[in-house]
């Protein structure tokens, strides 16, 4: 009964989304105030209905209702309770429901927080979000109904959740990532409404900024969580694989990063209007494209969900409608947008345009690399994978360029910058960065590597400029403490955003250059050394978890004869039908160094001798720390009072 209730709630939500997509727009056309206002209550109703549906599916999981096919395929009575809950979004149908639920949540948030916006604008934005939601409701109901029953013979036991996904990382990674993906629909809706309205002043950029920032924050966190999860759960010691699904989340991040910068220019200076609109369309389109790639099975990936061409056609048609429609609207309306403001070549405007250019070029390269197997296949060149060599070849030099121009962009003045001011601005930081680089690089890595020197220089360059700029901005403050309060939260948002990317880039470079690994044969009492650390295999035992058996090794790590850490890597074998094997790595995490031990295969019949892999992963934590700092920056911008609209400004 409960699953049917969830199904019906979803159908009602679909109907509401249709009305939401039409009525406010009609209201704008007819200048009917009530119809325009209806958008707000309809958004909330749509959200409540979807919440109800999501709750029903969760209930089916928590009560082990295996008559629901989706539950039977992805859960099991032995599954610990928190994983029963996260299993809701572990496969295609449920994660789609999560997606659409989050979309309605964003819509409801826009309905509430945007109630001081001009009524026409607000009505249009909500209608666009309603139309997007109706596409996803239709997709869920027509091709991927999570409430389908297994009648007349429901299985007595479920097939279990994929053990890879029985982990804390999976509980939070998809919701956070989806919040980011879906959040860009709000920026998209603002851009489309602005185009529809025809009067594209800078105000839409001002309204869209906090929403875009919030979406970007979630996407940054979501990608970092996914990378962290892959690192400790896959047991390969890697944290980024240039897998199509990773790329699908990285592409909107790249254009989203361009978008938050471009929105700032449009808001402050009223230029690049059509470019910003285009970026907003791109960013959301790439989120949709990501969905298409993951769900249609056109590309092979470690993430691929059950594939089904019917779903592929549906998403492609939807993609065609949304992206084709919005780009057509752009082609027709954008030529009317004119920027009257002038600026010099040496100005913040131009350097931010350069930043946008680099980010979009990187996105294009990732897109090409991701789709190349598909294009090659379509042109009858065969099915192949494009590996990290391709991505790294382009990505590293372009990121270098991006970090090099980053301080330039943040320190130049709007409109035009005088040459003399420029020289003064860059002389000192360049000097300090050059002096510090060899020292920092050698202390951190213990080696003289030109790649490490280069990466360290970039890190210093960005950090010194960021800090120096803070001193410059706060030079007029009366006391040292007053300095901290001098610049607004938006300034700190940029400050931490830029520090974050520097830390992340340094982490990527160091961990790529300095990681060590070793494959060894281990049995009780044996020891191995790697990079000055001694790994001693103490013992091996068999343990039983709630739904698995495991071989658990105890490895003690000594440094200079002193015990440093005790790691307990496991090789698990899950009970359920699939009988899947899982590697649970033993990791000692540290800001500067991770020690990582993963079990391979048993080498004898008594399971006492094991192939094991030992890793030293220096600075790998900095990659995620950097992402956290970036997200913190975005969060500060959200708290800035400038973006709270209290007055009614009817247009």
């Amino acid at each position, binding site marked *: 009964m409960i699953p049917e209730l969830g199904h019906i709630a979803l159908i009602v939500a679909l109907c509401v989304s249709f009305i939401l997509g039409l009525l406010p727009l009609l209201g704008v056309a007819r200048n009917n105030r009530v119809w325009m206002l209806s958008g707000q209550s309809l958004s909330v109703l749509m959200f409540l209905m979807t919440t109800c549906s999501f709750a029903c599916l969760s209930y089916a999981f928590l009560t082990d209702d295996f008559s629901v096919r989706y539950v039977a395929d992805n859960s099991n009575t032995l599954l610990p309770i928190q994983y029963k809950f996260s299993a809701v979004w572990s496969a295609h149908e449920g994660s789609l429901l999560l997606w659409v639920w989050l979309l309605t949540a964003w819509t409801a948030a826009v309905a509430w927080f945007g109630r001081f916006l001009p009524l026409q604008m607000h009505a249009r934005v909500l209608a666009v979000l309603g139309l997007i939601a109706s596409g996803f409701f239709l997709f869920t109901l027509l091709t991927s109904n999570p409430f389908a029953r297994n009648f007349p013979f429901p299985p007595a036991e479920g097939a279990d959740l994929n053990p890879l996904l029985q982990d804390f990382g999976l509980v939070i990674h998809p919701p956070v990532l989806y919040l980011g993906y879906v959040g860009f629909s709000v920026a998209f809706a603002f851009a489309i409404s602005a185009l529809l309205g025809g009067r594209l002043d800078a105000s839409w950029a001002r309204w869209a900024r906090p929403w875009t920032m919030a979406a970007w924050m979630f996407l940054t966190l979501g990608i970092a969580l996914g990378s962290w999860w892959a690192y400790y759960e896959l*047991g390969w010691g890697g944290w980024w694989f240039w897998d199509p699904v990773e790329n699908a989340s990285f592409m909107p991040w790249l254009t989203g990063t361009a978008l938050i910068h471009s929105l700032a220019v449009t808001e402050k200076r009223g230029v690049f209007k059509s470019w910003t609109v285009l970026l907003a369309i791109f960013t959301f389109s790439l989120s949709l494209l990501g969905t298409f790639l993951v769900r249609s099975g056109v590309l092979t990936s470690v993430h691929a969900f059950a594939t089904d061409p019917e779903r592929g056609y549906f998403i492609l048609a939807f993609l065609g409608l949304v992206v084709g429609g919005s780009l*057509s609207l752009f082609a*027709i309306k954008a030529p009317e947008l004119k920027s009257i403001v002038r600026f010099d070549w040496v100005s913040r405007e131009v350097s931010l345009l350069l930043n946008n250019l680099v980010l979009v070029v990187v996105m294009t390269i990732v897109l090409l690399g991701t789709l190349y197997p598909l294009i090659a296949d379509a042109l009858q060149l065969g099915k192949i994978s494009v590996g990290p060599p391709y991505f790294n070849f382009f990505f590293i030099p372009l990121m270098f360029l991006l970090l090099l121009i980053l301080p330039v962009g943040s320190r130049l003045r709007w409109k035009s910058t005088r040459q003399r001011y420029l020289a003064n601005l860059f002389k000192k930081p360049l000097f300090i960065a050059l002096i510090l680089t060899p020292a920092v690089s050698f202390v951190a890595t213990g080696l003289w590597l030109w790649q490490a020197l280069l990466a360290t220089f970039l890190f210093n360059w960005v950090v010194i400029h960021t800090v120096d700029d803070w001193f410059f901005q706060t030079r007029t403050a009366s006391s040292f403490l007053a300095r901290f309060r001098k610049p607004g939260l938006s300034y700190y948002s940029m400050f931490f955003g830029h520090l974050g990317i520097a830390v992340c880039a340094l982490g990527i470079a160091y961990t790529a250059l300095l990681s060590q690994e070793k494959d060894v044969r281990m049995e009780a009492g044996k020891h191995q050394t790697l990079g000055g650390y001694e790994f001693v295999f103490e013992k091996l035992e068999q343990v039983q978890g709630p739904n698995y058996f495991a071989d658990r090794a105890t490895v003690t790590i000594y440094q200079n004869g002193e015990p440093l850490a005790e790691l307990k890597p496991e090789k698990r074998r899950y009970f359920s039908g699939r009988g899947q094997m899982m590697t649970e790595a033993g990791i000692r995490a540290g800001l500067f160094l991770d020690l990582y031990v993963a079990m391979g295969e048993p080498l004898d019949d008594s399971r006492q001798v094991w192939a094991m892999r030992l890793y030293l992963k220096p600075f790998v934590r900095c990659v995620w720390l950097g992402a956290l700092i970036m997200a913190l920056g975005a969060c500060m911008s959200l708290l800035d009072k400038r973006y709270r609209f209290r007055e009614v400004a009817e247009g």
Partner: protein
Amino acid sequence: MMKKLFYFLPLVFFFVLAAFLLKGLELDPSAMPSALIDKPVPSFQLDTLESDTVMTEKDLTSKVLLLNVWATWCVSCRIEHPYLLKMAETGVNIVGLNYKDNDEQARAWLAELGNPYLFNLRDNNGKLGLDLGVFGAPETFVIDKRGVIRFRHVGVIDDRIWTEILKPVVDQLTSER
């Protein structure tokens, strides 16, 4: 007027992309012909992941072999791998060509996922791969008893590809003198 057309560029770009995506939905991995069909395996001297013995094209003669091009950076190879293990269990001779890869990682891969290969040629700089005209990984060549390439399959081998396409070729070559 020209400037207005300029704004249609994103739309045009998107339609090209969409056409490829549409085509992608209809496609299936399929075998493709190669200029090397019925030519001997190009000459090479490579050592293996397993030992320092140098192998040459002569070591690929005397039985019907599959020469499978793989690498640890290749996601599709990871998908293909379990099936190769199954094939090896049924007695199919598979030689690996570890293409543009890191030796340590490649050995770790085999230790973790199992080794379906008789031996693995170490083609670190991709020289043999280049001679074979490899686009990427995975690719598989069927080589007869005289060391001549008789068939080429680009892409992942799965149950369907093996039973419908490759196995008939292998069986026929095995029955040749």
